[in-house]
């Protein structure tokens, strides 16, 4: 019985590890890019007049990229936290704006270059 539970835990942890390290699904990344372009780019994108990019650039002083798209250290829970709770002057985004499925795709896009 005990061995069976250990086996189950081992298998489950392998599944989770596999999920954590799996390359993101291509179509999710593509969809996520569209979500990013529509909802995040006006504040977090590259180019002039992007308030969040400017703020992050001032805060991080070149220690990491200021545009979210270029980051490799974001995680899905963190992205979800900011989208659903907001931060500073960034408001919350409702599910009629960014659905849960869109948010998953957005996370796939913004974590696509993370080291695995």
């Amino acid at each position, binding site marked *: 019985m005990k061995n069976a539970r250990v086996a189950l835990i081992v298998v489950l942890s392998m599944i989770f590890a596999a999920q954590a390290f799996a390359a993101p699904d291509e179509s999710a990344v593509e969809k996520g890019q569209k979500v990013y372009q529509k909802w995040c780019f*006006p*504040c977090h994108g590259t180019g002039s007049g992007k308030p969040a990019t400017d703020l992050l650039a001032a805060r991080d002083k070149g220690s990491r990229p200021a545009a979210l798209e270029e980051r490799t250290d974001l995680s899905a829970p963190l992205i979800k936290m900011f989208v659903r709770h907001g931060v500073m*002057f960034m408001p919350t*985004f409702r599910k*009629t704006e960014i659905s849960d499925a869109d948010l998953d795709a957005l996370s796939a896009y913004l974590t696509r270059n993370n080291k695995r």
Partner: protein
Amino acid sequence: MRIPPGVSSKDFSSALQEFEAAVGKPWVFTSDEDLDLYRDSYSPVWNEDEEPIPSAAVAPDGVEQVQAIVRTANKYKIPLWTISTGKNLGYGGSAPRLRGSVVLDLKRMNRVLEINEKNHYALLEPGVSYFDLYQYIHERQLNVWIDPPDPGWGSPVGNSLERGGGYTPMHDHFDAVCGLEVVLPSGEVMRTGMGALPGAKTWQQYKYGFGPHVTPIFSQSSLGIVTKMGIWLLPPPEAYLSGTVMVWKHHDLIPLVEIFAELQDSGIIRGTTSFASPFWLGPPNPELDSLRASGSVKPLEDYAERKKIPYWSLPLPFYGPAKVVAAQWEYAKEKFSSIPGVTFQDGPSHRFPLGAEELAKIPDTVPLGIPSLHIFSLLPPGSQGHIGFSPILPMSGEALLEAMTVFDRVHSELGAGRAALVVLTSFPRALVIIDLFPVERNVERNRKTREIYRRLIKEAAAHGWGEYRTHTTFMGDISNTYSFNNHVLRRFHETIKDAVDPNGILSPGKCGIWPKHLREEKA
């Protein structure tokens, strides 16, 4: 489960089931987690008992679904609060006025129904944002300009109904509205203006239709749910040219405003601008503020001269044919030259359409009809949002000087330093002065802000200045100031409200108008 006031949990459950049947289960939100997304991110009553958190949200995708929701709301007397894009930040976000209302979220109704390039108009659903509309036009290379307000994530429908403003010659947004489709509190669909004529060919070309003109009573209103709106667009101008007028003495503000008013009322200046002064307007500056402590303007004028910083400056935007805008700027300079010592500076100018490279270098594209979020770059560091007290002043330098003094006095009497003021020319023949207050997730500081805000409402009203629009928290206070002849205007609104919305289901409390059953309690 959160429940609307005065509704039994049994009735609310039945209503929610009917909402689900109308729009589909995924589009009725009732969990705390989902409803928190409808809280006002810039709330000045965050986490206080009076914070108006909704009991549910329902998101239809068509007029028939809106009608079904309204019928159910009537059956169970459920208060609904309508939003289009729900980005009314600074004025209540997507949260209702009455705690426990059900938010009717029209974001999914996001179709551009028509764009006419010959007569320059659009017919839109409520969920179309300024970003969406621009994208739609840009992708199809249509020959029209839109007029966005500073943040592009709001909607022509939500913003125009709030009587918001932008920067191009179409800057008075409600003035650009032509024809509405409205779901009435009864659930019937009505079209205003020419739309009342079946098969009308001019719904978006002629505003007034026949008989009493009712389109305006749906702005800042709780009388209907707008499901389609016609708005006028601008033919793309050939050129944009800007130049700044700078004057150096305190009282130069008086001729500066007077000459501006003449140019604006003559149609020579058609875009929105703002009056600026490092001494009186914009964010407080401890060095300059201390110069004012003497109570005399002389040290300020001396400082301006010594440092070559204009005491007042006024950027002027010109839109039109290249030859015409150049001549208009020359003419404006001639007019302002009657102010001794005036100086001028040429500003950016553009020919349209803009090339991609040129566009990428322009930080603030909003005055060029291209929505952005650039405005947030101008907020003070660490900002968590703000609310604005924004009364309408006469278009005169005397009024502006008086208002700045009154606002400063109120701030300093209440121990709040100098007011952070912005003065805009968004509406013809009047100025909007905006006193900006930071909002925080701090109950004590928000209470202090509300105290100052409420004092300003009273002081402004005593001077004959009333707000053009306000945050939900202060709607009752502002409505109280529009009290001519024993509040006859509010009583008139209430008479209409009771007649068209007898169950009081639509946006209770919007702009201080409560349905009969809540009127005494909320007065």
